[in-house]
Structures are given as C-alpha cells and as structure tokens.
C-alpha cells in the first residue's frame, strides 16, 4: 500500500515539480532577458540596478506583484473573476506533461501527445474570455473578444501544420516524432527542410496564439488599455503574466521538438562528441526560438485586426492545406528519406 502510494503519487509529484519549478524560474529569467534585449534594441541599458547586471529585477517584480492588493471591480462576477487566472495557468502548465526533454526524459510518454497538446492549448482561451467578461469592463470585454477570435483562427492553421508533421512522422507520440528525425546528416534530417512553409506558419501561428507582438491586439495598450487583464492587479495579474510566458516557452520548445529535431544534434553523428544528442541541444534550440519572440516584439508594429484575420484565414490555412497534400505525396512516393531513420 505504502509502496503503491509512493510509486503512483509521490514520484509523479516530484517529477512534476522538477518540470514546473525550473519552468517558473525560466519565466523569471526570460522576463529579465526580454527587458534586456529590448533595451539593447532600443539603444538603452535595460534593467541594471538590482543585483549583478540587474539579474534580480524579475524577482523584485514578483515580490512587488505578490504583496500588492488584489482589487475586485464593483459588480464583477466574483467567482469567475478569481477562476479566470487559474484557468489560464493550469492548461499552460499541464501541456508540459508530454514535452520530451531527451530520449528518456519525459513525464508522460502519451501515445496521443500531439492531440493532448492541442487540447490543452485550446483550453487556455477560456481564462482570457472569462477574465474579460467577469471583470465587468468594456475594455476587458473587447480584449477578450479579439483574443477569442484570434486564437480560434490560428489554431486551425496550427493544427494543419501539425498534421503535416504527423504524416511524415507517422505517430502522435512526441518522442517518436523526434526519433523519426534522427539520421546521419544532422540538421538536414529534420522536418524543417521538407516542411519549410509549414514550419514558418507554425511559428507565426504560435506567436499569434500566445497573443504576442505583432499580434497582441488582445492587449493593445494604445487602443484598449491592456485588454482582458486591465482590471487585474497583484498576484492575479502575476498569474496571467506567468501563463503567457510559460506558453511562449512552450511554443518555442514545441517548434524545436516538431521541426528542429528536439534533443538531436545539428551535426552529423560521425563528428564525435558534438554529434551526440542530448538535453542541452533542445535547450539551445528553444532559446533561439524564444529569442525570436523578443526580436519580433522589438521590430514589428502591431497588425491591424482585419489584417490578422486575413493572414490567418486566407494565407496560412490555404498554404497549410496544400502542404498537407505535399507531405502526403512526400511520404507516399518516398521522395524524402526523413522519417525512415536512414
């Protein structure tokens, strides 16, 4: 009985903490990195006062947010108002259960991993919509509306991109998807090459799904103040913040896992030490993708709302549908050796 309890309850919780605690720390450092990078791109210093090189800035901000008062707007729906941040955070953290960190390091090696990911990311939108509705504010409601329409539109394009990967890999299991990209040629074996347009669409859809610049109309501080979380303060706001950044890091990891060979090394396997796969490679790739998020934010002006919709429905979805056909042909006629491990 005790053995079972330890095996089925204590160890999973320990594993879950092993993922979530580094993730939360990564979010804190990522916020610091974002402010630094944007600072450099704006030719200014960024945070540099608290701790060495300003490294403790993020933690100071966390403490500040946690000790602030949480304000409930008048005639807001109390239950949903407090539920909404949790509904955003839970799917954002739950999705990490199926992400493979290396060939053996995965919390749940689920067979339908990709479907589970889609399910979790699509649930996150509830938190945003409810936050907008429950806070009884016009700006918040407008932000929620925009966000809901945008997330649903880009989820379709994202789903079609995933279909292409599934066709080539022949599995819904993320570990199998990475293993299907293994080969002797290193970087040339990965899915980004035969699926290049889909890879680009996937990443841009990921930026749109996480409501980041240049698709951040849900927040649009110059138009609707801060969108869905305008009425939130203190720790409730901190949870939204945490969920948004956890989602960004998740999209970066997934782009690496699905298209860039996960933990595999970009060099040919005959190159000895650096040709071997391992967790650091995944970390480097995910870091590069998450850097793109910051680069986009510092470089591009915000899209107009109708342009976002046009891009999603009239550009991305048709290209992705055509590429599903192409991927099918690639697999059926054997035009590429990717996915066969040769």
């Amino acid at each position, binding site marked *: *009985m005790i053995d*079972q309890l330890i095996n089925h309850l204590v160890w999973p919780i320990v594993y879950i903490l092993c993922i979530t605690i580094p993730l939360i720390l990564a979010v804190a450092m990522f916020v610091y990195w974002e402010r630094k990078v944007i600072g450099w791109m704006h030719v200014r210093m960024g945070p540099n006062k608290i701790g060495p090189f300003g490294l403790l800035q993020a933690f100071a901000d966390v403490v500040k947010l946690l000790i602030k008062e949480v304000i409930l707007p008048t005639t807001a*729906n109390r239950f*949903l108002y407090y539920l909404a941040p949790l509904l955003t955070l839970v799917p954002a953290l739950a999705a990490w259960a199926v992400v493979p960190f290396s060939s053996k390091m995965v919390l749940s090696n689920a*067979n*339908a991993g990709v*479907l*589970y990911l*889609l*399910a979790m990311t*699509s*649930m996150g*939108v*509830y938190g945003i*919509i*409810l936050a907008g*509705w429950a806070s009884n504010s016009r700006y918040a*409601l407008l932000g*929620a*509306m925009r966000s*809901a*329409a945008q*997330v*649903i539109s880009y*989820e379709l394009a994202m*789903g079609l991109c995933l279909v292409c990967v599934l066709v080539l890999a022949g*599995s*819904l299991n993320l570990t199998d998807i990475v293993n299907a990209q293994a080969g002797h040629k290193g970087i040339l074996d990965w899915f980004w090459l035969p699926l290049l347009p889909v890879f680009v669409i996937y990443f841009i859809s990921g930026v749109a799904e996480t409501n980041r610049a240049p698709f951040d109309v849900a927040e649009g501080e110059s138009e609707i103040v801060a969108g869905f979380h305008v009425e939130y303060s203190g720790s409730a706001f901190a949870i939204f913040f945490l969920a948004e950044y956890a989602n960004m890091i998740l999209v970066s990891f997934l782009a690496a896992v699905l298209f860039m060979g996960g933990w595999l090394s970009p060099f040919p396997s005959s190159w000895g030490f650096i040709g071997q796969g391992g967790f650091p490679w995944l970390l480097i790739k995910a870091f590069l993708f998450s850097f793109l998020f910051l680069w986009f934010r510092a470089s591009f002006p915000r899209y107009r709302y*109708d*342009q976002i919709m*046009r891009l999603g429905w009239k550009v991305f979805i048709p290209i992705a549908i055509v590429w599903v056909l192409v991927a099918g042909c690639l697999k059926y006629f054997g035009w590429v050796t990717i996915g066969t491990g040769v």
Partner: protein
Amino acid sequence: MNPQLFQLICFYGFGFITVVAALSVITLKNTVHAVLSLVLTFFSMACLWMLADAEFLALALIVVYVGAVMVLFLFVVMMLDIDQEKIREGFVKFLPIGLIVAVAMLVEMLGLIGVKAMHAQVMGPDPAAAAGVSNTAWLGQALYTKYLLPFEVAALILTVGVVAAVALTLRQRVGVRHESANEQVRVNPRDRIRIVKMDAVRPAQPTPVPPQEPSS
C-alpha cells in the same frame, strides 16, 4: 488498492460530475454560467471516454467542442442581453410539454436497452489492444482502409453543410466598400504622391525688428 476498483471509483466520480454539470446547464439562471457548465459536462465526458481507453475520441471532444465550439457559444452568449424574467416565464409555461417529451424519450431509451439486453450482445475484445497498437493508430487504420467510403461521404456531407451555411447567411448588399489587399499592395507610390525636387535655398533671414518703445 486494486486498479479496477480505482477505475470504478473514477468512473462514478466523473459520471456524477457529468450529470450534475448537465443538470446545471438547464437550471442555472446566468447564461454564461450555463455555458460553462456545458463545458464542464464535455470535459468530464471526455474523462469518462479516456477511462474507456477511447483516447482519440476523448481528446477530439476537447479540441473540437471545448476548444472551438463552446468558445464561440460563449462568445455569442456574452454579447446577448438576455432578460432573465421572460425566459423564466417560458420555463414554467412549457414545463409540462418538456416533461412529456422527456418521459417519452426515457421510455423509448429503456425499450431500446431492453431489446439490446435481450439480444445480449457481448462486446468482443478491444480491437486496438488485440492488434497491439494504440487506440488512435487503430482508429486511423480502420477509418482509412475498411471504412474509407463512409468516412469520405461523411466528409463530403460536412463540406456541403459548410457551403450551405455560408450561402444561407451571405447577403450581397449594394454599396458596400471593401478593402482589396491585392490593390493595396500593388499600388504605385508615384500614383499617390508627387515628389518635388527643390534646391536647398536658405530662407531669407527676417530683418530684426527694433524693439518698439512702449507707447505711453
């Protein structure tokens, strides 16, 4: 604790939540709360299917219904300004009819269950487990080989439904202005602005005005 007992407890737990959530969909006064109960119903239903090893069906239910359909539902309900009292009036008025329909459906379902029980069809072993592949892989194989024609026909019917829905709601109005992204991209700057070249000439320096004596 043996796993089967635990599975049974989970089944009844999820089933209880499903039933309670489904009941609250029709009893809650606030429409947004009702929609959220419907979401909870779908979600716990998906958990039930997951218990039955139908992982693809469960996750598809969450992706399609919870992730997309219900979001649009919520979208619409949040926009509506519903007078709760009027709806309540209808509830009491139509309650007898609703009860009659519900009782009729219950009798029909019980009859059907009875007939099925008489046939006593025992379900065979799980085909996916028998084939040694995951539920999703087996479903994909079956749909695209054995049941290809019905599957494609269903897809065609759905497509027809989509086209019909668009055709029914699309109204061509005259005098509507549209943006054409193609035209916007193709436009030539020279058609819109005229660039004038001018010599760099220093403007004439204004002669300094001598300060006037304040007139007294």
